[in-house]
């Protein structure tokens, strides 16, 4: 009986070890599938268009054609119809609007989330408690927006086709969302002794917030900025739906890949375009990934 039990245990141990190895292998395979598109995109963006069609798309280029990237700077354009007439944005104008919108949105997110989370996290009275509860409710109650009413409202309020106002009014509810609650938890966890000591020395609430609490929160604020910046940089739908007189790089590349075959441009050009749009964000990600990995935690929903 003991022998049977021992054999069973041995078998179970072997099975568990095999399963563990298979799961680790699955992780490696999955990682490889994420690496492949990036390498494939890089390799094929350097191919001569004729080479791309005559050879396998899995092969390396017979000759490297950097000209594809130069071509992309000329051919990615986006035309908009404005009351003043037809405007055609080149890649530099689109990059300008991408940067403007992304920096604006990133800064707006970090400032509004930080100030709101500070108020709700640090001061506990009826208003902050109510807003916290409302924020939780908004996060867990599924409000299915119909889009149409939202679009009409934006047009009525003059926000439609106005980048500044769109940024300033983005996110109907600032005191909700996972990053807001992470920020609130962060401010609640900060040692109050720093603030109390400053108060004793005569510091105002504004001084305590800006000179003590916010500097202690820079890593988390940086994460929120990076996430807001990245989402805004990659966002083409806001420009497509709400900013018809503007264009950013994501919208430009989105429409370019749809129309490129009609204009005689090939996958190497399209892939080169993808890289041009993606490179700033890849650089930002590489610089900020440790910051994000260390600062993103999410606990439970209470209430």
């Amino acid at each position, binding site marked *: 009986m003991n022998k049977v039990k021992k054999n069973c245990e041995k078998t179970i141990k072997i099975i568990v*070890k095999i*399963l563990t190895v298979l*799961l680790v292998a699955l*992780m490696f395979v*999955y*990682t490889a*599938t994420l*690496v492949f598109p*990036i390498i494939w995109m890089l390799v094929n963006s350097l191919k001569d268009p004729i080479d791309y069609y005559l050879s*396998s*798309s*899995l092969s390396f280029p017979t000759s490297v054609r950097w000209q594809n990237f130069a071509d992309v700077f000329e051919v990615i354009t986006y035309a908009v119809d404005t009351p003043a007439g037809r405007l055609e944005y080149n890649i530099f104008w689109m990059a300008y609007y991408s940067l403007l919108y992304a920096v604006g949105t990133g800064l707006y997110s970090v400032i509004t989330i930080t100030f*709101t989370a*500070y*108020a*709700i996290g*640090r*001061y506990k*009275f009826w208003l902050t408690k109510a*807003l916290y509860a409302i924020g939780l409710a*908004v*996060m867990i*109650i*599924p*409000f*299915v*927006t*119909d*889009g*149409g*009413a*939202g*679009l*009409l*409202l934006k047009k009525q309020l003059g926000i439609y086709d106005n980048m500044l106002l769109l940024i300033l*009014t983005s996110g*109907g*509810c*600032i*005191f909700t969302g996972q990053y807001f609650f992470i920020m609130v938890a962060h401010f609640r966890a900060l040692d109050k002794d720093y603030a109390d000591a400053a108060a004793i020395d005569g510091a105002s*609430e*504004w001084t305590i917030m800006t000179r003590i609490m916010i500097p202690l929160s820079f890593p988390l604020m940086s994460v929120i900025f990076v996430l807001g910046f990245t989402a805004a940089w*990659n966002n*083409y*739908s806001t420009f*497509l739906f709400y900013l018809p007189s503007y264009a950013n790089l*994501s919208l430009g*590349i*989105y429409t370019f890949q749809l129309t490129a075959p009609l204009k005689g441009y090939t996958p190497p050009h399209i892939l080169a375009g*993808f890289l041009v*749009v993606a490179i700033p*964000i*890849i650089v930002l*990600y590489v610089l900020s*990934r440790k910051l*994000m990995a260390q600062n993103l*935690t*999410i*606990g*439970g929903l209470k209430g």
Partner: protein
Amino acid sequence: MEKNTIKERTARKKLTYKRNQYLFACTLLIFPIVLFLIFFVYGRFYSIFIAFSEVDFLGNATFLGLDRLFENFERFFSQIESGALLGTSLLNSLKAWLIAFLISNPLYYIFSYFIYKKTKGAGFFQIMTMLPQMISSLIFALVFKQIVNGPLIEIMNVLGQKDFPNLLSDSTYAFELVMFYNIWVSFGISVVFYANAMTGVSPEIIESAQLDGVWNMFQELFYILIPLTFPTFKTLLVIGLTTIFTTDYGLMNFYMYGAPSEIWNMGYYIVVKTYNSSSTGYPILAVSGILLSLISLPIVLGIKKLTDKIDPISD
């Protein structure tokens, strides 16, 4: 007498201090509250108003009362019954969420475990999983589209599958391919959250579990890590549930407005009907939004209550 005066002065000082704090907090909260009242509260009421109205081609809404509301409800339900696009979209949203949930979550836990245990290669894995969400979900989707239309067909031809279709264009396979894509790119932030939650588990608990006989990853996961990181799972589950009918699962990225009708979901339906159709259809969209919110609400709250009950570490 002096003692009382000192006490009174201290109490007054405390009150002034508290009052200043509350005033400061209120100042910080004015802007978020105003924004919330206009774009969230008024926005929802405006949506309800649209449900009672007729909207013309120029977007002008005329309130017509209960009769129009009931007419719009009727149209909503008849479209579902007749198997029209609205019904297909609704069903696809439910299917997509369920598939993504059942396949992704076990994998999130397993891959997070390897990151938590600092398995060789896990660091590189963590960098790569964030890439689709960080580089650009759009670019990743478009590269995926190019791969499906290029190398994938080449590989299948080499494996003997001549005339292998472009899976994204073939409505027989498009739904499954879109689901595969969504699961494939979804790991990023979720894995980071779970791995960080596991890191928060006290090493003493793991050590004492090992002394009690826990010797492999599956036991560690089932008996220790999953229960202790349940709040994180609960939060992500509830947040995920609220997006069942609003996410388009990348259809806009792949197809713009031209996705095959068999694979439409509610998020995509709302986008196309809002931005690529006449504003005369907005009332029925408003009704859809209201009804789907009412349908989703008990589901979300019910599941939240259930997870609160089974939460092994709830207080």
